[in-house]
């Protein structure tokens, strides 16, 4: 498609940069290549283009080991959550459980479909939460019927009486010593448990002295926090790189308020 613009290398005729780039990259037939190189070597203009292409190669090679910005904190947190979930699946007392047919990352396709909605928000946190909840489902079979070999993860404590509705979610066991994986456990579902609804959560947020405008709930789930029943809410903080893991007892007593992210 470029023939009409390829210089022939005849004396006085301008060189095509693309022709020289093809020559430089070894695209051309050997005979043509040999003929052109002999012409290029005697033409300062052509040699300058070849030198420019060499400089590009050097610039690109230098990029390999050049310092680059680190992975942004919210992506790193999401990665950590996914790997923690994978680690729990592999090592966390469910070693006989069958592996999911697909990696949790497949669920990120769902997260991506939400991207257009998230654009207004300007952060990857929702995706992180959406991905994390998918990871949660991959790891915690929950109340789905399972075959005999599949046990609930050891970290899940069933509290059949905790919910007032049929099919109420089971509280998740969360330890204050291990809050880093909480995003992966909670995800972006909102299960208010003993707080009943958003108003119940809002009341606790206000009583804790947090700014409700900055403290939007990303995900909410009943928990057993260090052995005490409560509700964990992942709240925004006003800083797009940070979430807050806010844990309250049913009477709004704050059990934990932990920043997540950097």
């Amino acid at each position, binding site marked *: 498609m470029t023939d009409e613009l390829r210089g022939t290398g005849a004396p006085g005729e301008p060189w095509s*940069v693309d022709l020289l780039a093809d020559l430089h990259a070894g*695209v051309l037939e050997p005979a043509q290549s040999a003929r052109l190189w002999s012409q290029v070597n005697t033409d300062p203009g052509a040699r300058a283009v070849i030198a420019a292409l060499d400089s590009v190669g050097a610039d690109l090679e230098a990029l390999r080991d050049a310092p680059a910005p680190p*992975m942004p904190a919210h*992506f790193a947190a999401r*990665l950590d959550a*996914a790997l923690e979930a994978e680690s729990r699946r592999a090592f966390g007392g469910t070693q006989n459980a069958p592996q999911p047919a697909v990696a949790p990352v497949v669920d990120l396709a769902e997260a991506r479909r939400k991207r257009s909605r998230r654009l207004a928000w300007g952060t*990857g946190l929702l995706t992180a939460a959406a991905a994390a909840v998918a990871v949660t489902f991959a790891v915690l079979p929950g109340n789905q019927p399972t075959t005999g070999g599949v046990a609930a993860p050891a970290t899940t404590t069933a509290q059949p009486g905790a919910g007032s509705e049929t099919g109420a979610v089971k509280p998740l066991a969360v330890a204050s010593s291990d809050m880093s994986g909480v995003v992966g456990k909670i995800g972006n579902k909102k299960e208010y448990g003993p707080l009943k609804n958003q108003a119940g959560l809002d009341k606790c947020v206000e009583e804790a002295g947090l700014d409700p405008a900055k403290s939007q709930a990303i995900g909410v789930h009943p928990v057993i926090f260090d052995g005490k029943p409560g509700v964990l809410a992942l709240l925004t903080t006003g800083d797009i790189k940070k979430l807050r893991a806010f844990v309250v007892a049913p009477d709004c007593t704050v059990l934990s308020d932990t920043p997540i992210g950097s």
Partner: protein
Amino acid sequence: MPVRLSSVTAAASSDADLIAAHAAGDPRAFSELVHRHRDRLWAVALRTLRDPEEAADALQEAFISAFRAAGSFRAESQVTTWLHRIVVNACLDRVRRRQARPTVPLPEAGPGEPVTPRDAMADRETSLVVRRALDELSEEQRVPIVLVDVEGYSVAETAKMLGIAEGTVKSRCARGRAKLAKVLGHLRNPDADANVPGDAYERRDVPMTRRHLEGR
């Protein structure tokens, strides 16, 4: 399964030790490996895919794959080489999927687009200039150039990874380098200008690139 935590996950452990410990059931070994190499592999994913969301997804997918495949890691290869290849393959899977979705536009590489923070100091770095120049290439040119010129894969390996002919890899690299030479200012040499048909270059390459971008 017995786990040798503290001794194996110590900072002094080699990457190969960590892989072996992970395969033997050490729940912390893989995490240590990830933290050692995450940022470097993030840079690989970002320059291959350009879109930070996709790069993060690909890196996550790659690390999960590596987590599961660690048992089949062969000690004669470098862990970093092994991880690098898994990340690149995860990225290329996404490139192929993206190419199968013709209506999804590539993100514009304009100001404010990248999630990666930029500061005035970094703006002056050559590497940032080169990364931005790469962003101006069509995906068809950028991906082979990243694999061959930045990551150091051979033309033959790149052709195999991309499922295209070696001649196509060379040709796309040639076109991409020609454009980069211009974008990076290497073609501003007066001698070159005097004998290089700049308008022909513009006429051919710029519209081709725009057409490529707009067609996605």
